[in-house]
C-alpha cells in the first residue's frame, strides 16, 4: 500500500510541476528567477512546457534507468544513486539551455546572460524531481530498492 501511495504522490507532484509550467501568472519557472523581457519571450515561445518535459523526462528516466536498467548489487550504494542524480542534474539544464538558446536565436532575440541565470534554477528542480521519481519507482527494484535510504 505504501508503495502505491508513494507512486501516486510522485505522479501528482510531477503533474503539478507540469501544470505549473503552463501558468501565465504563477509559473513555476518564474518563481526563483525573473527578468521581464526574457521571461515574456520564454512564455510566448512555449519554452516553459518544453523545459518542464525535459526535466521530468530526465528525472524519471534517470530513476527508471537506475532502479530497473542498472539494477545491480554492484551499484546499490548511495553514491551510485547520487552519481546518476549528478548526471541527470547536469544534463537537464544543459539541454534546456541549448533549447532556449536555439529558440531565442531563431526569433532574433539576444538574452544570453538571462538564459544562463535562468537554467541555474533548473539544477535544483531536476534534483528534486529525481528524488521524487526515485521514491516513486524504487519499491519494485530487485537490487536497488534500499538505495539511497533503506526501506
Amino acid at each position, binding site marked *: 500500500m505504501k508503495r502505491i501511495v508513494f507512486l501516486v504522490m510522485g*505522479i501528482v507532484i*510531477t*503533474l503539478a510541476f*507540469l501544470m505549473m509550467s*503552463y501558468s*501565465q*501568472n504563477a509559473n513555476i519557472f518564474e518563481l526563483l528567477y*525573473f*527578468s*521581464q*523581457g526574457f521571461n*515574456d*519571450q520564454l*512564455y*510566448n*515561445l*512555449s519554452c516553459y*512546457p518544453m523545459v518542464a*518535459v525535459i526535466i*521530468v*523526462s530526465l528525472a*524519471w528516466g534517470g530513476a527508471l534507468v537506475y532502479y530497473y536498467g542498472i539494477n545491480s548489487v554492484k551499484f546499490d550504494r548511495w553514491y551510485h544513486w547520487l552519481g546518476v542524480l549528478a548526471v541527470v542534474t547536469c544534463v537537464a539544464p544543459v539541454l534546456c539551455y541549448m533549447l532556449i538558446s536555439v529558440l531565442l536565436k531563431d*526569433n*532574433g*532575440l*539576444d*538574452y544570453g546572460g538571462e538564459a544562463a541565470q535562468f537554467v541555474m534554477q533548473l539544477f535544483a528542480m531536476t534534483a528534486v524531481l529525481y528524488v521524487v521519481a526515485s521514491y516513486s519507482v524504487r519499491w519494485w527494484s530487485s537490487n536497488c530498492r534500499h538505495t539511497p535510504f533503506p526501506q
Partner: protein
Amino acid sequence: MAVLACLCACHRGGALEDAIKKAMVQRDTTAQRFDSICGIIKANPDQYSAYVTQDGEINYQALAELVEEVGASLRPAMHWNVMAYGGSSFSLTVYFERSGSMVPYDDAGGHGQLKKAVNDLINYFPAGDKAKINIVNDDIYPYKGTVDSFLQDRNIYASTEGVGNATYTDFQKIFNKILEAQTPGNVSVLVSDLIYSPADTKDVSIDKILNEENSLATNMFKRYKGKSIIVHKLTGDYNGKYYPYNNNAVDYNGMRPFYLLIIADTKVMDAMAQSKDYQQFMDVQGSCGTYRFNQGESSVDWNVVPDWKDNAGRWRVSRGDRCELTGAEADATTGVLKFAVAANLGALRCPEAVLCNDANYTVESLSGFKVEIAPIQPDMLTANNKSYLDGKTHIITFTGDYKGPRDNIKLSLRNDFPEWIEQSTCKDDTNVMAPTFSSTTLGLSSFLGGIQQAFGAGNNYFTMEIAIK
C-alpha cells in the same frame, strides 16, 4: 512517459491555436498567414467545427474571438483584426457635396486635389470597390454610375449636373440622413467645403447664421450615440464663382480648403485606426489639419516595455485585466522609478504636435509621476524590445519619486479643441483678396464646435491606469 505524451498532445494549444500563436509571436499577421490558418480549419472541418459555418465556410466571428483570446494570452497582449479578411469587413459610403461652391474645385485646369482625395479614400478602403457613392446638396441622391466610372470620371461635376438643387446645402437633412443610414460597420465619408449655406439668408446677420449653425450641429449630433468623426482639412485649386454668405457671387482663382468628414461608430473607428489594412485610408494624403470627435474615450493599445534604455528601478508586470507593476522599487542610487510604456497613439488620429506635447496630458499619482512622450523611431527598435514596440507609435516615459508602498497612476490625454480649426475659420468671406481667404472657411469653428459640444466637450481621448505595488 505515457502521461507526458498525453500532456504534450492534449495541451491547450492544438494545431490551430499553435498556428495563431506562432503567427502573432513572429509578428507575421498577414493575409497569407491568415489563409494558412484557415487551411488548418478546412483540412479538419470536423475537429474545428466551431470555426466553420453550416455552409462549410470559415466562421470569421468565432475565429476572431479565438485569435483575440490567443492574443490576450501573449506577453504583451497582441491584437490581430482578422475580421477584415472576412466578408463582414467594414463598408464605405461616400457623400460627395455638389453645391454651387464645390464645382470650381474640379476645374479642368486645376490639379484636381479634391477628386484625387476622394479617389484615394475609395482606393485605399479595403472594400472600396463596393463603396456606395451619393451626391449631396439639398438632399442625398445616389450616384448613377459605378465605382469605376466615378474613379475615372474627369469632370464629376459635369456628369452630375442637374442632380438636386445646387443653390444651397441642407446640413441638417444631410447629416441626419447619413447618421440614420449607418448600419453596423459602415463608414461614411462626407466631402464638403463645410460652408453652411441654408436657403433664405437674405438680410440675416452673419452672427445669427453662425449661431444657428452651431446650435444645429449640436442638436444633430447629440442624438446619435457612440459615434466618432474625424475631420481632415485639405486644400485644392479653385477656379470659378465663389458664393459668400451675402450671395453676391465673385470670381476666384486660387487655393481653397475643403474637408473630409469620416463618420463611423467609435468601435469601428478604433478598429480601423489600429488596423494596418486601413492605415492608408486613415492617413489621408495632403491633410493639413485633422481632429477626431469622440463620444466617450477610445481604447488605446499599450503595454509596459521592460527592455528600455531609460528604465530605472525594478518591477514586475502582473497579468490580468488591469496593469499592475508589482514588487516595484525605485532605483537605489537616484530614488527614482522610471518605466516606459509603448502605446498606439496613432490610432487617435491626433496631430503629432498634440500627442508629443506633455502639457496636453493630465497625470494623477501620489508620487508625482511625470511623463515624456516621444514618437517611436526605427533606431529605437532592438531585437529584444521589438515585440513590445510592434504596432505602437509612441513611447511614454513615466518618472516619479516612488517610495511605496503603493501608487496608482492615471494618465489622460485631454481632448482639447485644436488651434487649426480656429485658424481655419473666418466670419466674413466676402473679400476673396484677403490673405487668409485661401485657408479659411466661413463659420468652420461654429459648426465643428457644435459637434464638439454635442459629443461632450472636455472628454479625454483616452485614459491609462497603472497600479504600482
